[in-house]
C-alpha cells in the first residue's frame, strides 16, 4: 500500500514519539499542518489497516531487567518452514519470528526468532522448549546472544517507516 504524503508527514512527526503534553495530537498535527481531529483520524486509519502494527509505550528490555536476548536461527526445509514459523510465533517468550533468505555458504539459516529473558539461562531454557515443541530438534541451529547494543531507536519516518524488524530487542 502506498502511503499518502500526508500520512508520511504524520509518521515523520511521530518519529521521536508522542509529545508528553495534554493534547499531543494537536501538537503533532500542528507540526505538519493537520488539525487535531484529522491527526487522530489518520492515525486510527493507519492502525486499522495494519500500517501501524503497534501504537503505545515502547519499552527498553535491558533497562527493565531483561538483560539477555538471543536471536535464534534454524535451517528448515522450505516446505516445512511456514508450519514451524507459525508454531513458534504462538509460543510464550517469543517476540518476533520471521523467515529470511539463506546466504550460503556464510549463512545457511532461514527461520529467525527473538527471545528475551532476565538472564542467559532463562533464554536458553525458552529456546530449548521452542526447538522441541516446533519439532526442530533435527534442524541445524545457531543461537546469537547479543553482546553489546550500539544503537536502538525508532526509525526515521521521513525517509522510511519504522520497521518492526528482527534485531529489535527494544521494540
Amino acid at each position: 500500500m502506498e502511503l499518502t504524503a500526508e500520512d508520511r508527514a504524520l509518521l515523520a512527526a511521530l518519529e521521536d514519539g508522542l509529545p508528553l503534553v495534554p493534547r499531543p495530537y494537536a501538537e503533532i498535527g500542528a507540526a505538519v499542518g493537520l488539525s487535531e481531529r484529522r491527526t487522530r483520524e489518520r492515525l486510527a486509519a493507519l492502525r486499522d489497516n495494519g500500517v501501524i502494527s503497534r501504537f503505545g509505550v515502547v519499552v527498553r528490555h535491558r533497562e527493565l531487567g531483561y538483560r539477555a536476548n538471543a536471536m535464534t536461527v534454524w535451517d528448515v526445509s522450505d516446505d516445512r518452514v511456514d508450519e514451524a514459523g507459525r508454531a513458534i510465533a504462538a509460543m510464550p517468550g517469543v517476540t518476533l519470528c520471521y523467515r529470511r533468505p539463506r546466504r550460503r555458504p556464510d549463512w545457511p539459516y532461514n527461520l529467525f526468532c527473538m527471545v528475551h529473558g532476565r538472564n542467559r539461562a532463562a533464554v536458553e531454557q525458552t529456546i530449548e522448549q521452542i526447538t522441541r515443541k516446533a519439532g526442530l530438534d533435527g534442524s541445524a541451529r545457531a543461537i546469537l546472544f547479543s553482546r553489546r547494543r550500539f544503537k536502538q531507536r525508532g526509525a526515521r519516518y521521513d525517509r522510511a517507516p519504522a520497521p518492526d524488524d528482527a534485531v529489535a530487542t527494544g521494540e
Partner: protein
Amino acid sequence: MRPTRETASEFDALDRALLNGFQNGFPLSPRPYAEVADRLGTTEDDVLARLRRLSESGAVSRVGAVVAPHRAGWSTLAAMAVPADRLDAVAGLISGFREVNHNYEREHRLNLWFVVTGRDPAHVADVLRAIAEATGIEVLDLPMESAYRLSLGFELQWS
C-alpha cells in the same frame, strides 16, 4: 551504549501498569494521557510525570508507532563479520547512518547485526553498498520474506 540503571524493584504498581498495559492500543482520544490516568485511577499530570521519568531513565524509548515491515517502505536485517580490533570503529560508522536504527554485537562469526530502513529497496541497497565500500567488509542482506509474528509488545514480569 546506555548503561543499565533501573531494576524491576524501582517501579511501583502504577509504573508497572503503565509499562505493561499500554504497549498497544494507546488511546487516540484528544487527551490520551487523561484517559490512561482514568483507567489507572490517577491524574493526567501524574501519568505525564511518570512517562517523563521513565523516558529519562531509559526504561521507555517513546510512546509511539511501530510500522509493519514493508507496508510503507523497505527494511532489511544486515550482518557482517568484523575483526575484533575493528568492531568499535565499524559499529560507530554504521550507527552514524540515519537509516540504521538498530545495531548490535552478537555472538557469532557474523558478529555485527543491524537494521537498515529506507524509502524502497534501492535506497536500502545504496546504504548497504556504502557500508561495504567504507569498511571493505562484505554485508549480508537478509530481508524479511514472511512475518510469522510481529512485535505486539512485551509482557514484563516482576517476580
